[in-house]
């Protein structure tokens, strides 16, 4: 291995010359100048902060029921956002419910990002028979509408957070793997990968040094756009009684249990839905901003 004689034998310390700003620094600089994306990021950060700090911020016990304070309207004394059908403080439940809702939005996408990109990158770089084997298997899952697949899997695995997590991850893996495969195939055909192959580098070294850096960006952007879908699907599963179980607060589940109150207290019934809406729109806006910041041709 050490057969290459260095052109310069003295191994003096290499002075670090000024580096140009890298790709990600450019993306960051551009996204900071995008007001839409920044507003969305601010909304999301505050939602995440409120959810994490809920135990200390909550004005009341989110599990304490009261038969005398059922379905109080917004702005009632002691209940800023009213109470639900069992008289629990809605603001406290919304704050604490954000934890599970955000968790169910982000975690499946994160897991699917890791697994789906790995599958897609392997398939895209290897090509040939391995590609066919991986991608056709994934196409089987891809053939089902995602809502149907999530419900079917959750139903088969049984109710519960973990099972909902697994089924959502399985729903997203094919979508992410497809993107990963197509981007990797493109990079695989580029001249710089050919040049790296011609230098005798192993497939692993090429993927690590040349493929990942060019592939993970687009996959990541696509994945962020799935977070809102994941949140809505998770809420849907909870709504159907397949995800989070009562009395645990979660926005989708709250939407379900409050739906009976839609004629008596429509604003109360709509509140959890409004939170789901604002969060998913913010994720989508941030994702769009990220895409725009990365798509600039240099």
């Amino acid at each position: 291995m050490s057969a290459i004689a260095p052109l310069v034998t003295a191994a003096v310390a290499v002075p670090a010359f000024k580096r140009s700003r890298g790709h990600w620094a450019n993306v960051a600089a551009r996204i900071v100048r995008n007001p839409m994306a920044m507003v969305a990021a601010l909304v999301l950060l505050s939602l995440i902060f409120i959810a994490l700090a809920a135990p200390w911020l909550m004005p009341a016990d989110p599990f304490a029921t009261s038969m005398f304070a059922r379905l109080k309207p917004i702005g009632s004394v002691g209940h800023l956002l009213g109470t639900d059908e069992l008289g629990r403080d809605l603001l406290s439940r919304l704050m604490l419910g954000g934890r599970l809702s955000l968790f169910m939005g982000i975690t499946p996408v994160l897991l699917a990002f890791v697994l789906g990109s790995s599958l897609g990158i392997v398939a895209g770089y290897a090509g040939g028979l391995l590609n066919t084997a991986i991608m056709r298997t994934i196409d089987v899952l891809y053939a089902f509408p995602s809502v149907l697949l999530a419900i079917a899997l959750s139903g088969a695995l049984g109710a519960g957070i973990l099972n909902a997590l697994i089924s959502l991850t399985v729903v997203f893996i094919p979508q992410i793997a497809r993107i990963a495969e197509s981007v990797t195939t493109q990079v695989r055909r580029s001249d710089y990968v050919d040049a790296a192959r011609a230098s005798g580098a192993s497939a692993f070294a090429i993927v690590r040094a040349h493929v990942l850096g060019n592939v993970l960006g687009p996959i990541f952007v696509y994945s962020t756009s799935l977070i809102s879908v994941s949140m809505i699907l998770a809420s849907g599963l909870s709504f159907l009684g397949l995800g989070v179980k009562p009395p645990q607060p979660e926005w989708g589940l709250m939407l379900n249990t409050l739906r009976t109150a839609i004629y008596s207290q429509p604003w109360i019934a709509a509140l959890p839905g409004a939170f789901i809406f604002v969060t998913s729109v913010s994720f989508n806006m941030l994702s769009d901003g990220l895409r725009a910041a990365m798509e600039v041709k240099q």
Partner: protein
Amino acid sequence: MKSKRDIGGPRQPLLQVSELRKYFPLKGGLPFAANKSAVRAVDGVNFDILKGETLGVVGESGCGKSTTARLLMQLIEQDSGELVFDGETVGSRALPLRQFRRQTQMVFQDSYASLNPRMTIEDSIAFAPIVHGLPKRQAITRARDLLARVGLEPERFAGRYPHELSGGQRQRVNIARALALEPRLVILDEAVSALDKSVEAQVLNLLLDLKQEFGLTYLFISHDLNVVRYISDRVLVMYLGQVVEIGSADQVFDTPKHPYTVALLQSMPSMNPLQRTTVAPLAGDPPNPINPPSGCRFHTRCSHAQALCAQRAPLFASAEKGHSVACLRYEAGSGVHFNHNHVEVAHG
């Protein structure tokens, strides 16, 4: 050091290419159909690259020049044929692919596509030496030395990204990258074709300097006949996936033997307005490489073609010392003779 690596001695060809063949099967049709049609991109190519020479390769678009380059680089696998590098078969126990690749490098036509857009140029150059076990620090030092050597100040350029460089600068980076493994053979696939004329001349002169300095051998692929004549010691002419003529640059350019070479040279614009070419020397497009003509592949466009040309494929015959041609008229006893009514015009 150079002499130590020179295993077979100076007279041993650096690379011997024999019966190289690559067919690209066409998509469509039944997957297991018996006789699938294929593009015969490279169809039985033989030639030697001598140590220290620059071998120019010319031919029309689609004649298999680039496929040949990729085959030599082993970026695609040949269907049949053998490469012998300095006496050792490539891919054999004596010369595994990885070792061969260290000694043969390539510069691509598209200077932008051949550099990773997310890597600084010093990292791009240092990648191959690091892969071959050179410590990172030394590899970076070498990358900067090479940058200086190809005329880019390392202080200014080492930390830049490809999109911050001009086409000529990027191609210098690509040359530096190719040299980072200290190869013996460098394949230049249209390496200067995409550059402006003035930049092209600078890069050509750089290539000539580097060849001297590092004792390199070049395979220079281009469609630009003037450039090939300027840089090459010997020239190889390809037509439809086959070699039709090979000889020293002077022989091929001054006394071309194959009618295709003659036509190719006539298609070069003349500097003298009085010798302007008024009739198109070659009519039509080259035939379809999926179903090449029988016999001599050029007979459909050849002004000298005789009946036998459609039946017999010509063998490679020596026309004069060091100058071979695949034309039945030069093959002794082939039955095809020179038609003396036809006046051959060498390019002036």
